[in-house]
């Protein structure tokens, strides 16, 4: 064989023809079958055909290899142009027109019709075949399928559809219609015949806007038409003009239009077959079509299509299972047995390409890869949630994501958004994007942000102490931390519930990272997130990162008072969810306890108080004025109540508290304190408070306290509690002042946040300690009760 030099068009054309004839993909064509049909279609005398075959060496080899086939085609062209068949003419003849093959049962002038009608043997199959693909493939311009079918039938019947055949029109249309047919199961042999004629048309007229050819949608040429002009892109004007021209021609235009996209794609693919990126790019229309198809299966664009549904869907394409399996392997990027939107589009695209005759790649082209970059950016989804990790997550990336897929990115603004959401969903993490967005939406005035400003009542000794001090008007130890805290409560009255948790969480977050306060404050959504997250922290609040050093412990002298303060504060904080303050529910029946009782009871109430106060203050600092007031009362209480010697003070303080304290609990507390029986209440309250009951209930039981408890016993514990309560009180006291300053100064807010968090941790610690004490006290109580029971029978004896 001499070397054969083919022009580009020839190359393409011949390649198409070869593919068409190569039904078994064996890269060699038997001398019979399609090749024979082809040569017959060349309308050359048989002897010429034989001569050609001999020349190209097919007779020698017994089959047509690719080179032989090309040579044969070239010789056909030579023969058709009337030149003598000579081997040397292969390369010497320049500007040889491409061989023309007329395959028509009826002697048709128009090649197109001939081509199309030649497949009359397959019309039925096509007709059967055509409808499904249209269903599958969105018809951009309407019921192409019908047209196609009609066209086909008409073409078959007429064999000519004269208008259709006009050579001028055929080329553009043929590709289109051919494309349409391509959508039919290209794998099927039925398609093959069409493929052959398809490409034939392309070389004929470069830019003929004929649509007549469309009459033969049968031609599902698997090879894209060599014509680039017509196919360049769906959006290109020439094709569109061609389309427009075709439109009036026949309904088939629709079919062609429909297939234009695919044709364009395949054309592009072919043109750029060297680089996979471009050929495999999905155009806008295609993408839209794929998305719509996706929606028919899975309405949620962010969801998955299960494998079984996808299998059914793609089986309709009538590709062989083996190829579908391979397509699946390529497109199911994360190997999860389900297709995300990206994967689905890639698979669909591969199916389309395959049906158009393109071989499946060995690995997924870049342009078809799901956007993974977004995963990294968004740090989200587990997508799909963080499930598979970034590399495998099919989560779509935000528009910025994949540079390799600019077309996709550009064309799917909505898709990208959805993908963002989807990605978020799949990644299972509020994407950093959203977080950052929120950061930008800093709305300090947002009430939600107020939540961010935790108003934890710091249970720092200093605070408690300060509160005590306030109560006592002994001085103003109210350090800055407390004042801001005090300021805060009033500002967050309505956010008790939220704030309680938020404060706690915010406190945690603050301790975790002060820097986070900004974002924290500015992002309401984050708040939600952080709140939720922080709630988890709540359990480990004291363990948060490097909490600030707790304020100095209050003076020992105020220890008891502080504890009482705590009690008061707890009782004061009404309606706050978790605050154990509620503790003073009527559950504490005043029980005449033996002398021994007082000790433990003393402990208990103290513990309870401390606990209550602690719980009330630590979790939610609903630093409201009432709290503040309560705390002040509490402080007074604590200061006075613990020590009998201070009872007078207590009473005075209680009065003060009464004045200051609006809540009933406070008043009751005062009363109780005054009686010095708060301790009794405390134990009862403590257990209940543990459940974080309603604070208001606490006060009533308090008055019932007995003074049985020795003050001595009370004192030590009170001291402990006082310290804690003092801290709490201080914190609480400081809260009211916070809002005023904070509201104006963001820094102050942040500072207060930090302080609150510190307080939070301190209070949390205090809480734990008190809990421990509570447990001890309860144990004592139990033992005492047991003893009592033991004694009773004796007494009854």
């Amino acid at each position, binding site marked *: 064989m001499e070397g054969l030099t083919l022009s580009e068009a020839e190359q393409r054309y011949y390649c198409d023809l070869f593919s068409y004839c190569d039904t078994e993909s064996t890269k060699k064509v038997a001398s019979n079958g399609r090749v024979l049909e082809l040569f017959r279609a060349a309308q050359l005398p048989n002897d010429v055909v034989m001569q050609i075959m001999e020349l190209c060496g097919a007779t020698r080899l017994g089959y047509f290899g690719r080179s032989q086939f090309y040579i044969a085609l070239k010789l056909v062209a030579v023969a058709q142009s009337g030149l003598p068949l000579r081997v040397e003419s292969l390369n010497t003849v320049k500007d040889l027109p491409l061989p023309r093959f007329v395959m028509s049962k009826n002697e048709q002038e128009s090649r197109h019709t001939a081509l199309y009608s030649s497949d009359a043997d397959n019309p039925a199959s096509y007709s059967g075949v055509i409808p499904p693909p249209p269903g599958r493939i969105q018809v951009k311009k309407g019921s192409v399928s019908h047209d196609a079918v009609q066209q086909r039938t008409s073409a078959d019947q007429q064999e000519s559809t004269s208008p259709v055949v006009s050579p001028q029109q055929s080329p553009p249309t043929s590709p289109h219609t051919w494309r349409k047919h391509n959508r039919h199961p290209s794998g099927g042999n039925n398609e093959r015949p069409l493929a052959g004629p398809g490409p034939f048309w392309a070389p004929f007229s470069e830019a003929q806007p004929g649509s007549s050819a469309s009459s033969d949608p049968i031609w599902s040429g698997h090879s894209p038409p060599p014509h680039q002009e017509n196919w360049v892109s769906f959006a290109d004007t020439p094709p569109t003009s061609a389309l427009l021209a075709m439109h009036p021609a026949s309904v088939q235009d629709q079919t062609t239009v429909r297939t234009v996209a695919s044709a364009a794609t395949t054309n592009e693919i072919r043109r750029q077959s060297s680089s996979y990126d471009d050929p495999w790019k999905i155009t806008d229309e295609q993408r839209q079509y794929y998305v719509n198809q996706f929606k028919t299966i899975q309405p949620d664009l962010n969801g998955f299509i299960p494998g079984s549904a996808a*299998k059914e869907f793609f089986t309709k394409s009538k590709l062989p*299972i083996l190829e*579908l*399996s391979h397509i*699946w*392997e390529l497109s*199911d990027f994360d*190997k999860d*047995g389900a297709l995300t939107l990206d994967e689905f589009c890639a698979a669909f695209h591969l199916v389309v390409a395959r049906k158009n005759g393109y071989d499946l790649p*060995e690995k997924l082209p870049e342009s078809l890869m799901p956007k993974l970059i977004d995963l990294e950016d968004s740090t989200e989804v587990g997508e799909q949630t963080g499930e598979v990790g970034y590399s495998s997550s099919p989560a779509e990336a935000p528009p910025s994501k994949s540079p390799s897929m600019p077309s996709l990115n550009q064309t799917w603004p909505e898709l990208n958004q959805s993908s963002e959401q989807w990605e978020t969903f799949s990644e299972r993490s509020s994407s950093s994007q959203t977080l950052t967005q929120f950061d930008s939406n800093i709305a300090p005035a947002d009430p939600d942000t107020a939540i961010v400003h935790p108003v934890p009542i710091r249970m720092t000794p200093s605070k408690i102490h300060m509160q005590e001090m306030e109560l006592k008007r002994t001085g103003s130890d109210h350090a800055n931390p407390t004042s801001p805290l005090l300021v805060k409560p009033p500002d967050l009255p309505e956010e008790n519930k939220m704030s309680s948790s938020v404060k706690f969480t915010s406190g945690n977050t603050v301790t975790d990272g002060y820097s986070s306060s900004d974002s924290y404050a500015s992002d309401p959504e984050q708040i939600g997130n952080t709140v939720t997250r922080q709630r988890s922290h709540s359990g480990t609040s004291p363990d948060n990162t490097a909490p600030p050093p707790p304020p100095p412990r209050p003076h020992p002298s105020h220890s008891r008072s502080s504890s009482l303060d705590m009690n008061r504060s707890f009782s004061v904080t009404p309606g706050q969810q978790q605050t154990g303050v509620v503790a003073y529910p009527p559950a504490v029946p005043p029980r005449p306890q033996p002398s021994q009782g007082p000790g433990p009871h003393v402990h208990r109430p103290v513990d309870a108080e401390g606990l209550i106060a602690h719980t009330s203050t630590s979790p939610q600092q609903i630093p409201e004025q009432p709290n503040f007031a309560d705390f002040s009362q509490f402080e007074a209480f604590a200061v006075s109540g613990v020590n009998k010697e201070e009872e007078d003070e207590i009473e005075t303080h209680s009065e003060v508290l009464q004045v200051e304290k609006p809540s009933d609990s406070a008043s009751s507390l005062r009363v109780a304190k005054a009686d010095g029986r708060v301790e009794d209440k405390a134990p009862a309250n403590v257990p209940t408070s543990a459940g974080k009951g309603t604070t208001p209930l606490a006060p009533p039981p308090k008055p019932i306290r007995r003074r049985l408890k020795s003050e001595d016993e009370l004192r030590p514990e009170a001291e402990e509690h006082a310290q804690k309560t003092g801290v709490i009180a201080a914190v609480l006291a400081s809260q009211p002042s916070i809002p005023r300053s904070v509201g104006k100064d963001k820094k102050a807010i942040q500072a207060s946040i930090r302080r609150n968090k510190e307080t939070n941790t301190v209070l949390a610690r205090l809480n734990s300690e008190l809990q421990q004490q509570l447990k001890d006290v309860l144990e004592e109580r139990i033992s005492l009760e047991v003893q009592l029971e033991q004694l009773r029978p004796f007494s009854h004896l």
Partner: protein
Amino acid sequence: MAVCIAVIAKENYPLYIRSVPTENELKFHYTVHTSLDVVDEKISAMGKALVDQRELYLGLLYPTEDYKVYGYVTNSKVKFVMVVDSSNTALRDNEIRSMFRKLHNSYTDIMCNPFYNPGDRINSRAFDNMVNSMMMQVC
């Protein structure tokens, strides 16, 4: 590098078998077939415990003069048999394990493909590529 890799279904028919196309491949087929008995023996031996406790990697099934045969069973009784050239002394147990792990992962990926019916022969290109990478490179 393996000389022959085979995937046997639960019913002991081959789903996939590929050998280095040097010598008589039939010999490897026979080897794999005979190794199934050893696999069953090992499975039943470990079967006293629950299946969960059974380790997937079976280890060396039996050595012959020219090569060694390793086995691996999944929880669904799909067996992977690998024939390794004895002269290849560099292969350690860990490497064999990792090769089996790769096989298992690829097999799982095939299973995820809805177009694959369990029990069919494995025709996946990806699987082929993976196996090829593990096979000995014969000039």
